[in-house]
């Protein structure tokens, strides 16, 4: 029996968080739920705890990258075998968690499975603004070219990793807008990932983390990070580069949780 964790990053999601936690409990009862409250100013953490989730409270807003890394650090510390990221705003339908899990278990070589909005076979794909679609297409072709495999939805945060992936992400996770870089990080560590089709729901409440004015910054920042990342040898440099603090979680793992 593997131990599975659903990591739910949430920032001021007081309206949606209880429903999200409840729907994960319902759709995937074999998953523990960890809500990472990224410095919310509302009662997100209290609602999540009341809904039966473990809560990791960031003392201030770290951004999605720092919050998710905190979640992976928790998964590493507590000895989880599988971690799935489910957004707190209700976009990710928990009924797909077992599809991701089945795909992950179907191939022992596989380290990460991402839910893609653009692999829908019934023609009912994900709707979003034209600019966002163009951006996703650019990232898609860049990431596909670098990894040498077809990646249709590089900005999807609905992804599941096994223990090896948890270890990598707990030690080194991109800062903001981490999804695209995370795929390349897996690739740099010679870990294998794939996509399965999922349907995403319109968000229940709140604003997207990326407003239209920020999307230009998003594009430039991620493309720069991707470009610089090509000149970085992650697996070898990671230990020396981050040893004072980044090495910490590894020592914690040995402690029985």
């Amino acid at each position: 029996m593997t131990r599975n964790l659903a990591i739910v990053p949430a920032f001021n999601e007081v309206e949606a968080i209880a429903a999200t936690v409840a729907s994960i409990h319902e759709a995937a009862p074999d998953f523990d739920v960890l809500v990472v409250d990224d410095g919310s100013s509302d009662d997100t953490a209290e609602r999540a705890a009341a809904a039966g989730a473990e809560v990791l409270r960031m003392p201030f807003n770290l951004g999605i990258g720092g919050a998710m890394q905190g979640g992976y650090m928790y998964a590493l510390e507590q000895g989880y075998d599988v971690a799935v990221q489910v957004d707190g705003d209700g976009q990710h339908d928990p009924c797909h968690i077992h599809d991701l899990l089945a795909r992950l278990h179907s191939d022992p070589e596989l380290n990460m499975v991402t839910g893609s909005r653009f692999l829908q076979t019934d023609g009912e794909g994900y709707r979003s603004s034209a600019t966002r679609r163009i951006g996703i297409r650019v990232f898609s072709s860049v990431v596909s070219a670098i990894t040498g495999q077809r990646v249709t939805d590089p900005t999807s945060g609905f992804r599941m990793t096994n223990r090896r992936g948890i270890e990598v992400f707990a030690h080194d996770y991109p800062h903001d807008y981490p999804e695209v870089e995370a795929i390349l990080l897996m690739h740099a560590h010679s870990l294998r990932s794939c996509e399965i089709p999922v349907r995403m729901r319109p968000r229940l409440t709140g604003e997207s983390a990326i407003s239209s004015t920020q999307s230009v910054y998003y594009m430039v920042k991620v493309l720069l990070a991707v470009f610089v990342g090509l000149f970085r040898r992650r697996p070898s440099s990671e230990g020396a580069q981050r040893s004072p603090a980044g090495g910490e979680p590894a020592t914690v793992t040995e402690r029985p949780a």
Partner: protein
Amino acid sequence: MTNLSLERGISVAGALALLLFVFELVRRKHLSERYSILWLLAAVTLLVLVGWKGLLTSLSHDVGISYPPSALFAVAIGLIVILLMYFSLVVSRLTDQNKILAQRLALLQQRIDSVERRSEPSAAQAPPARDVPAPPREPEHELSGSR
């Protein structure tokens, strides 16, 4: 000639003031030695360039700058760029360390919460801690009551 030496005097006084200001900040421990070194270096460089008569003129002629004060600006801008770059590095490092501290803090907080929950399994239903017969020590009493 008097005009020129007055200008020189003002420049020297400015560079000296910068030097003394940095020194005073270090003395009062408002600025750590570590970050003062670059500032001191910048102040001393400026002081030498403006105080040493003829040095700036000959140096600027050597590198082909016809107007010596421009050479001073070039040096000053160079020093500023170095300082700013250094601060960007420091800020990046601090941001990273800050993030790691926040993550560790959140993880420890969660661990404490879960330990406390486990040690008081019926905490949710039980009456508040202050109604439970507590050891006579007041501070501990208050601590458990505040949960």
